[in-house]
């Protein structure tokens, strides 16, 4: 978006650099002058908050890797060593563990914000797809990181999640052995998970760069969903949104710090402070809270369908529940982006949110009795929302009249 550039190299050195590597020009265009809709609310600060989360995880993670040992005989003790002996290790380890939860909390808010305001609609489909890809990479990274402390939940999470791949017909078992490096989860598994857990955050950082690139082509969506028409609709990113984002980050760090300093283990599970034993499964295994909705979907499928057995079917639904997000831009047929102007969509949106929270709750409950039935109902509704409700709504709903421009909507609000 060079047309927004107001950069003129000030000194001889800047001019010399600008002709060879225009990095100052690029930064000024994209980090300072970038025209941003003037009506963005605080839900839009989560993009910057997520960048902060990724940086926190990378910095604390690199430090933890200096003290951690990826060997089944020593891994569990090395994490305890970090928590007890390493200078400041208690806080650094807690920041990394709590940081994963905060990262997912922020990403869920970011995703649900995009869903409400229709940020996935044309021309932002690629931006959305890259976002879903980041979400998938985050899940893989978080899962492998959770295995590293080698507690009971770590080992059994590794067993259960790698077993998901065994459900694939024909290549399932060889694939399972390839992933584990053995017939069961053991030292080769732990060692490679450590290697990949170190690698993936940098892959995420690269996809984040693409995500921001794809954002800077059409520019930000905004709460009205109406496209930017002229310069009266926008403000330069700096200082208006750098300050707003910074303020959002500070607010976000309050609960973050509370967890680290006062309840570092509250989001974890006590069983993970028992070293992994491949012969005893804990009485009630649950994943970390951020995987619960998908875990509930996986467990809900306990019946065969035609020639597909329950295990494979569960895996298909589990994978499908995330992969369907890739198709969201085409499943939602409404031309109106923002939920603020879609009277029917708003109700279904909140129903979907409630259903998602219900799945989270059900994922943490034991797999019997009424919980199985409720999980099935919520799983069905999750898919119905995407496959039936969204395509139909776009056809039958009459949206409320849209403001002609962002600036008009802002001005009419200030007069009211």
């Amino acid at each position: 978006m060079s047309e927004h550039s107001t950069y003129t190299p000030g000194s001889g050195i800047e001019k010399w650099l600008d002709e060879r590597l225009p990095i100052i020009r690029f930064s000024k265009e994209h980090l300072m002058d970038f025209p941003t809709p003037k009506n963005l609310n605080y839900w839009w600060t989560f993009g910057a908050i997520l960048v902060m989360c990724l940086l926190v995880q990378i910095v604390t993670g690199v430090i933890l890797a200096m003290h951690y040992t990826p060997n089944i005989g020593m891994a569990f003790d090395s994490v305890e060593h970090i928590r007890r002996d390493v200078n400041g290790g208690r806080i650094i380890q807690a920041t990394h563990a709590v940081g994963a939860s905060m990262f997912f909390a922020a990403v869920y808010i970011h995703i649900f914000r995009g869903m409400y305001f229709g940020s996935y609609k044309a021309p932002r489909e690629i931006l959305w797809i890259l976002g879903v890809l980041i979400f998938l990479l985050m899940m893989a990274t978080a899962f492998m990181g959770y295995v590293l402390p080698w507690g009971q939940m770590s080992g059994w999470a590794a067993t259960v999640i790698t077993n998901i791949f065994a459900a694939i017909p024909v290549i399932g078992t060889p694939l399972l052995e390839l992933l584990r490096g053995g017939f069961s989860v053991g030292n080769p598994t732990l060692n490679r998970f450590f290697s990949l857990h170190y690698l993936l955050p940098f892959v995420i950082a690269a996809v984040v760069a693409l995500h921001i690139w794809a954002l800077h082509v059409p520019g930000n969506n905004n709460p009205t969903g109406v496209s930017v028409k002229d310069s009266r609709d926008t403000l330069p990113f700096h200082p208006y949104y750098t300050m707003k984002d910074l303020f959002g980050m500070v607010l976000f760090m309050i609960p973050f710090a509370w967890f680290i300093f006062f309840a570092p283990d509250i989001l974890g599970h006590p069983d993970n402070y028992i070293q992994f034993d491949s012969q005893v499964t804990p009485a009630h295994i649950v994943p970390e809270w951020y995987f619960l909705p998908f875990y509930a979907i996986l467990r809900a499928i306990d019946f065969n369908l035609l020639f597909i057995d329950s295990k494979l079917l569960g895996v298909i639904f589990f994978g499908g529940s995330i992969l369907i997000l890739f198709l969201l831009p085409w499943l939602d047929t409404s031309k109106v982006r923002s939920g603020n102007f879609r009277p029917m969509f708003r109700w279904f949106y909140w129903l979907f949110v409630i259903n998602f929270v219900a799945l989270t709750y059900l994922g943490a409950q034991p797999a019997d009795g009424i919980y199985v039935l409720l999980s099935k109902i919520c799983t069905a509704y999750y898919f119905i929302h995407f496959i039936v409700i969204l395509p139909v709504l776009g056809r039958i709903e009459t949206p409320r009249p849209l403001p002609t421009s962002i600036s008009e909507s802002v001005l009419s609000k200030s007069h009211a």
Partner: protein
Amino acid sequence: MATQSQHSTTRRDFLFVATGAVGAVGAAAVVWPLINQMNPDASTLALASIEFSLAGIEEGQSVTILWRGLPVFVRNRTAKEIEEAKAVPLSELKDPATDESRTKEGHENWLVMIANCTHLGCIPVGESGEFDGWACPCHGSQFDTAGRIRKGPAPTNLVVPPYEFISDTLVKIG
């Protein structure tokens, strides 16, 4: 342009395809070892078979042993459990198998099974559930006294590993 491409293939086209094909095979040959290194290594494969003595396992007692890093249930079943398993009609089973097919002739009291639930690999808890067999704590699968799946998401019965009786009290697994 479109009509010109109808001409017979040139020497350049042939070289292009041939170079591409050789390059693709070369790339695959380089990638394969990079993936294959993740497969079970020689030290893991070396644990392929074990011998285990049954002496000292009383009727109604179970032990769990390790084979290839996998836990294996060895259960000396009671007469009541064998009866229960034999009484189940095959039509009631999700993965039909007779009790005889899951044990060795002459040693019907011994049940040897890989202890990982066939759903996602948790270890079911013995002598529990509605069928007096095993119940998986993770996702609610229940197995009967012959280790057959009766309820829950597991698709198949608990797996019987390849094993043989060397003598009345010694089995070789693997």
